[in-house]
């Protein structure tokens, strides 16, 4: 099964089991989804529940809010994170505020799915990773599935939540093949996952960078460094406990994030580690992030702009050398 299929299965299950659920977004129906995630669902569920929208990100996101307020469970698809900026007013000024400012009267159980990330040479207006940026906003939850299990579980879990939930699906993962494990139904959106246990350094990451970290951990293992790899899974709220437990064990942390460094989620994680684990640290926290430029088109520059395995390995080795 692919990551794409896992999400599709989750959406199909939700559509089948809950009449309130419907999908809405650009080209999710007749076209089959710009990344083919929703392919086949129109035929299965019909135009009423699989709604192709005009190019009107703000209106259909806002309509999702309204429908959620009236008891539906809309799943809005925004093709890529960059386009979601057109709907940001609705997300930040309305979806994120209504519950609190109405004194609890108006929770907004809206799910928004967005493609995110680089890797396909889509250049400066289609490649950015805004999930960490969104994680700054109170009132919403931000999920970033990296595994087949999480891709399968998260849409359903998001729909069980009364708050607006944004699910960032990395476009470089859609074709990833893998087996669904038997434990996927136990997945939650409260906890980060330790994807590899280790004792020397904690690689803290999420999304597509998870696989770069696992690869780096393999390489490091050969060099005798035992890296633990944490998949955050949920960027808001962050699971402090899992992060801190790991850092207290390894005494070193490297955060790997496809977002830009300054003011990204990597900063928040580093800040929290500094606040809560200062005396556990054997070395300064290191961040490996995307260069602070719009992601360029050509392969070699896109690769140079993004965090890569070699850079992760080098950062860890550098850090181990500097150990206190």
């Amino acid at each position: 099964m692919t990551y794409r299929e896992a999400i599709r299965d989750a959406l199909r299950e939700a559509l089948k089991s809950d009449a309130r659920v419907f999908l809405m977004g650009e080209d999710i129906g007749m076209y089959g989804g710009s990344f083919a995630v929703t392919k086949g669902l129109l035929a299965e569920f019909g135009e009423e529940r699989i709604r192709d929208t005009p190019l009107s990100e703000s209106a259909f996101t806002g309509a999702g809010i309204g429908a959620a307020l009236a008891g539906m469970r809309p799943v809005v698809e925004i093709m890529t994170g960059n386009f979601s900026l057109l709907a940001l007013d609705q997300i930040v000024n309305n979806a994120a505020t209504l519950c609190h400012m109405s004194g609890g009267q108006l929770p907004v159980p809206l799910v928004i799915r967005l493609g995110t990330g680089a890797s396909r040479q889509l250049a400066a207006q289609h490649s950015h990773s805004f999930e960490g940026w969104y994680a700054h906003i109170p009132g919403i939850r931000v999920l970033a599935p990296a595994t087949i299990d999480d891709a399968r579980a998260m849409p359903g879990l998001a729909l069980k939540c009364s708050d607006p939930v944004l699910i960032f699906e990395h476009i470089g993962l859609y074709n990833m093949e893998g087996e669904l494990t038997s434990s996927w139904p136990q997945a939650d959106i409260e906890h980060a996952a330790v994807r590899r246990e280790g004792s020397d350094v904690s690689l803290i990451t999420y999304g597509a960078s998870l696989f770069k970290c696992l690869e780096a951990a393999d390489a490091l293992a050969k060099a005798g460094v035992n890296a633990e790899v944490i998949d955050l899974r949920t960027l808001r709220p962050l699971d402090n406990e899992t992060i801190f437990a790991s850092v207290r064990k390894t005494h070193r942390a490297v955060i790997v994030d496809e977002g830009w460094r300054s003011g990204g989620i990597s900063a928040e994680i580093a800040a929290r580690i500094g606040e809560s684990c200062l005396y556990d640290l054997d070395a300064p926290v290191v961040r490996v992030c995307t260069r602070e430029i719009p992601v360029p088109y050509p392969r070699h520059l896109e690769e140079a702009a993004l965090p890569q395995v070699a850079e992760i390995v080098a950062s860890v080795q550098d850090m181990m050398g500097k150990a206190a």
Partner: protein
Amino acid sequence: MSDELPVDRERVLQHLTQMLRIRVFEDRCAEMYTKGHIRGFLHLYNGEEAVAVGVMQALSADDAVVATYREHGHALARGVPMNALMAELFGKVTGCSRGRGGSMHIFDKSRNFFGGNAIVAGGIPIAVGLALAFKMQKRNAVSVCFFGEGAAAEGEFHEALNLASLWKLPVLFVCENNQYAMGTALARSEAETSIATKATSYRVSSQTIDGMDVFAIENAARDALTNIHAGKGPMLLEMLTYRFRAHSMFDAQLYRSKTEVEEWQKHGPLITFTKRFKERGLMTEDDYQRIEREASKEVDAAVQFAEESAFEPVNELMRFAQAETQP
């Protein structure tokens, strides 16, 4: 015009009561602002009362209402208790949004009153979404969306009207064209100044109505609702009206002349109404005085209620940062 109700004494007094409650309430708000009981931005509805009252008369309890930051009148006409409204403006926990929203964020879910939105045009897509839900749920309800003529310049107006029409959703769009957006006269912000004309871009049928005439408004709303209930899709009513007071409490009104304001005031919704129905023998000066007194008393009580109410305890600040119930 098949949906028109007869204009009898009962309905005349009823409409007068609703309009006067709003007028008296708004005037008192200005006073309370000066005294420092109300803070933040305060946008009053004086001059536009007929619009909210006329439209609300046509609605049923199942219908949903979305309004703007200038929404006290809508809340009152919709039946939000005046006590809860005034308490909200005072920032008290007995306010309809626990005091958290203030003047621009009046919510009352139990009355399907969905705000109170302080982003110009920000409520329009939400109203469309409510209507989408109603349609999918096969409920016989309509979503009514109020916004100013200034909002028509925003992209969200454009996107939302198209979406509503494309999907034939049960939305009644009510544009309160009070001629100005803050200090910007309509002709200085729109190349085409008829908002009703803009509706044709979306094949939304529309009508321009005298926004000072409460019965004309009610009738237009009833007709529109009949069409909407018949599945004909959304409709837009452009109400020509005028804001008698400043935009908010921080406005020197440099952008319009006193004469212009006075001219409009002569044709205000209360003056014209009273004159007409006195002439037709459906009300008397006594009626007016009595209703105004009653409104005043209601407002007195609301002020007292608000004054005596408690503030939300600070330790509840983080409550509802997330929803407390599961869907």
